[in-house]
């Protein structure tokens, strides 16, 4: 069984989660690629999600055969390799005019 985890920043200066954004900040890793310690950190976040409301959070989505589970966590509680997996991409493909 393969378990995937997606990480997206919410908030901050860019407000990566705003719906009309023309860019996306996200990362996606197989849970097995994390170290044992980091995997335990992630499992703990999903086992005991905490109410953490602030100007900046990470949304973690865990996908396995049982479906999807989502938690939001502060930067301090998210494993480093997950945060480092985040990269910036365009939300929409280039239009003809933009690609000229």
């Amino acid at each position, binding site marked *: 069984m393969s378990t995937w985890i997606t990480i997206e920043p919410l908030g901050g200066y*860019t407000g990566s989660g705003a719906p009309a954004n023309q860019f996306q900040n996200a990362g996606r890793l197989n849970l097995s690629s994390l170290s044992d310690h980091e995997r335990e950190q992630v499992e703990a976040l999903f086992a005991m999600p905490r109410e953490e409301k*602030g*100007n900046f959070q990470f949304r973690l989505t865990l996908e396995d055969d049982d479906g999807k589970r989502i938690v939001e966590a502060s930067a301090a509680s998210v494993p480093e390799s997950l945060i480092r997996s985040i*990269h910036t991409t365009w939300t929409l493909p280039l239009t003809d005019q*933009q690609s000229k």
Partner: protein
Amino acid sequence: MTCTCFIVPQDILKRFASDPSLRDETRSVFDRTANVSRLVRAVREQQTAFTLAAMPFSLAPAVALVAPALRAASPSLVYDCQQGTSTPGLPVSNPSAAADGPTKRACEKALAVARFYSEVFGRDSIDDNHMTLVSSVHYSVGFANAFWNGAQMIYGDGDGEIFADFTNGDDVIGHELTHGVTQHSAGLVYSDEPGGLNESFSDVFGSMFRQWQSGQDVITADWLIGKEIMGPAALARGYTCLRDLANPAAAHCLAPQPTHYSQYQAGMDPHYSSGIPNLAFYKAAMAVGGQSWTKLGKVWYEALTDFAPSPNLSMSQFANRTRAISRNSFPNDATFSSAVDKAWTAVGL
């Protein structure tokens, strides 16, 4: 006399004191330092109180008002995350003279924003109580964001294509520092309407800081947010900014926003709904003319900071605060209060 115990903020000392990844001995050093720092601050505050009490009654309030301006600027500390994600990271000595661009910019621009708040609004740092300015740079790898984590500012290097280094933007640093000001004043929650106001204050004061620093008036200002952090790929596609206070829905924005309260829906991302109060500020500024921070900015600042904490403040409540302040503070200038009123009405509030 050594002053090291004053430099690291109390909340960072407390965070280290309870950090399970540190050794017991190290944690206890931070715990002791936090306690000493707290005691020294209490003594300092008591000395100030005694000094004011000893003055003639008529002089004490005046001294209290000018005291922040006479005090030395709050220190601006910079830490280097070295592409890691542990904050604050490693301390950088003498950051204002650093060869590293992001380190030097984070230090100097934070000081400049604090100076803006001090000279224009009489505010003494983020908390109005001489709080040390703490910034961390080089957060993670190619990280395309900057944020306020409740105690300090954190900047990514950008991916280099869509976003450049985040310390390039004067308004980025003004925006993040203003999140701290909002936290220490209105204390707005970060969701729904107060979340949108929270984001808007950061954009509005970030833009005002940029205008103040460049000596621009409302006509010469470009009102763009994030202009200096657009990377080559974004510019090549015709994006000139992240957001635009003058035209929040414009196609040149990487993150276009709604422009009227009728478009607001509960649960909206604060970076989206902030377009509504952003546009109200711009419209009022254009109607008033001159420099945005001299009169209108003070009304916005007073509406944000001169009330008891109001975490659930709605957009219409804030609009009405600015209407009342503009009427009461400038009773002989009906044109001014009318401009504020009309700007809010134009965005549906």
